[in-house]
């Protein structure tokens, strides 16, 4: 099971990102643990400077904007 964290201070794009990831995971039948990280200290701790960011199993895979569906499918595949 993959642990996925969405980094962001609660802006609209961050919520969209989390929703989209949940949607794609459901469509592909992939089991994930999705978590939203809103603490600024923790976000900065990942080295991310533009939100929303996406962290999978401890690695930052994306930052700065809503990722597109194809990209998310790539992470979950």
């Amino acid at each position, binding site marked *: 099971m993959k642990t996925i964290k969405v980094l962001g201070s609660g*802006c609209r794009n961050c919520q969209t990102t989390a929703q989209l990831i949940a949607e794609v995971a459901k469509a592909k039948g992939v089991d994930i643990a999705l978590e939203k990280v809103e603490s600024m200290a923790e976000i*900065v701790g990942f080295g991310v*400077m533009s939100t929303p960011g996406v962290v999978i199993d401890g690695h930052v*895979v994306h930052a700065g904007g809503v990722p597109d569906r194809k990209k998310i499918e790539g992470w979950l595949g």
Partner: protein
Amino acid sequence: MHPETVTTTDTHALRPWLWGLPLAAALWVAVYWHLSDLADLLVSAAGLSRATHWGEATHFFLYDTPKVLLLLTGIVFLMGVIQTFFAPERTRALLAGRRLGIGNAMAASLGIVTPFCSCSAVPLFIGFLSAGVPLGITFSFLIAAPMINEIALALLLGLFGWKVAALYLGMGLLIAIVAGLIIGRLKMERYLEDWVRAIHQGTAAAPSNTSYTWVERFEAGWHHVREIVGKVWPYVLVGIGLGAAIHGFVPQDFMASFMGRDVWWAVPAAVVLGVPMYTNAAGILPIVEALIGKGAALGTTLAFMMSVIALSAPEMLILRKVLKWPLIATFIGVVATGILLVGYVFNLVL
């Protein structure tokens, strides 16, 4: 990595862009040069005359709306493409360890082309500081990034012409550079919130997906257009609608009595009025243009606009998470003084 397959799929996907973009550009230019004729045609087709209030207001609306939307689309697309060359991580690497002076000038210029959204002002701020970008240089970036944005430039260009747009760009850079220099000289690092100073950022985790193909750059430009123009067009329509009403119905020189250049308190009043306001340039500029047509001074109006965009109350609240009050007050004070000076200089020169 399979370089060959990457190149072939890339050229395949690139082809529609390579003939589509010049076509779109040609169409753009053709329409842009005939906007006035089009507006004349539509006004007379509607049975109106430009000599009447309604006719003049309608012409204003039909001419300015497509003009501003065209400029907005063009500039936002270009900006979207340019921004793919300047990820925040790259800008930070360019600025780390720079000295005051040249570093401030670089930071202010990079502020124009680096993608920036006020919702990620805090992580960006900390990201810069923890990578060794000095406080004053970070502020030059943070002042220039929101103030000199593509929406403001597109609207200034469309409504006031290239001279005013260039002046706005130059003055905005100057304010960002000088304000950053002053904040740097004051050595205000102790007014950062304690948790910010304690933070040790994990830079190793930063994503390395900073290389783009040209197809991705063009797609980023198009995405930028859909996002920005899609969000901003209602404001442009309402703004130009109000502007058209002022243009057609408010008497000539009406504004000169309280926003003219002879009124010394107009500039400070405009700045003070602008700070708590938070709106985008798109809604406010068409109204501003109409006011200037009725005798408001350009410097006063630009000062108002800069203060609305660069010093907004919501952004101060976001920055309050990382800055203590003395530093926020200094930031507002220095930038507001700069905007005041710009307002007076414009009123004197133009």
